């Protein structure tokens, strides 16, 4: 069960926060800042897209009224 868990929306949003903070601190070398900037912009696009795509998706809706297994 060593399967790698896909990062959740929350994880990605947290990473984005982290990136903005890091870049804002202006202590990193330019190359690192640029790399973080690219990553951050990609995350914004990705998260935006996740939300936009979810619009069309209807949440799973299951009715479980009985124990299926004992």
């Amino acid at each position: 069960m060593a399967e790698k868990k896909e990062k959740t929306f929350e994880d990605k949003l947290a990473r984005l926060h982290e990136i903005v903070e890091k870049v804002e601190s202006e202590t990193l070398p330019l190359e690192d800042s640029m790399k973080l900037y690219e990553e951050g912009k990609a995350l914004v696009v990705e998260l935006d897209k996740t939300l936009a795509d979810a619009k069309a998706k209807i949440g799973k809706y299951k009715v479980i009224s009985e124990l299926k297994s004992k």
Partner: protein
Amino acid sequence: MDKEASFVTVSQVNGYLKTVIEGIADFRHLTVKGEISNFKRYSNAAYFDLKDDKSVLPCVMWSDSLFYLSFQPKDGDEVLATGSVQVYQPKGRYQLYVNALDLFGQGAELLRLEDLKKKLTAEGLFEEGRKRPIAEFPSVIGLIVGDGSAAEADLIKNIQRRWPLVDIVVFPSLVQGAVAPKDLLRAFNLSQMPEHKLSTLIFARGGGSSEDLGAFNDESLVRAVSKSRIPTISAVGHEVDFTLLDFVVDKRVSTPTAAAEAATPDQLDIKQRLDELSVSLDGAIGGVVEQLLNELGDLSSRPFFKGPETMYAAASEEVDGLRKRLDLALGNVLEMKRANLSMVNEHLDALNPYGVLKRGYSITKRKDGSIVKSVGDVSKDEVIESRFADGIITSKVQ
């Protein structure tokens, strides 16, 4: 009856009435069921009426009895009042003198509920410290609702509108009636199965009378929910209706819509947050670049970049000086060498055989280049060349 005895006094009537009424054994100790109205409390006694749909019975309760009351009586309370019927002679009024007052029916239920609440509170089940935060970004939300209820529809609609990324699992249950507590417990136990991977569990039911919401006061249910693996939200009844479930869940709200809001982020807010983060990121990288540009500007305004020549003027001067010295030194050396060379040259000139020619001698060579040193070296008609200092004479031997 004579004239003297043809009347009685008011006091006599009231006194007689008092004797008769208070002589009735059943009136000495009885319990009356009724609804309280006109309840007025004074320092030494409380006065109120007990009524049913047809009649009213005035009541008095002395402060020593009031002291033992387990609740605050108020108008509308259904009660059982125990005491004796007596006559207040000055007013000719019969009243129930109440020794003990107990809530009846719904009121009694409320009292029982108060006791249960006290008990569970004492056990720490309702402590604020036990409340867990509700997941900000839930992946799966469980709903314990009446099957096909308005609460269910409301929750699903609002959850999906706010956070469409979430999955919803519904655990339908009876939410009122005698079987409801058991059914709620069954639905709750289902929701606890790890396979559902719930982030949040919501109990919801629309408003109703307090009897309707009774199932959510069930002790077993409340105890079970206190051990929920998943953070819980309750939205049972309305703002004014509190159930014991409301105290044990991690978050209590008053309507299904509010529950949806408590359980999910609003995608519009999140989108705005993303925009803000994006702008912050642009600003931050802009800041980084600007800072570097400023540094660059500072550097380029330094003398070195402003007028590079000034930086190496000294060096250039030094180099120049060195070059001059070198030139000079080299010139001297060359001069010396040249002088040397011409001296050597003169020596060489002295040794040069051709130099002798300048003094009037000549050298004669045969055609093969060999020098003629004796007359015997040549034969008649042979062509020879004689070299003088300034030229060559070709001659024929005779």
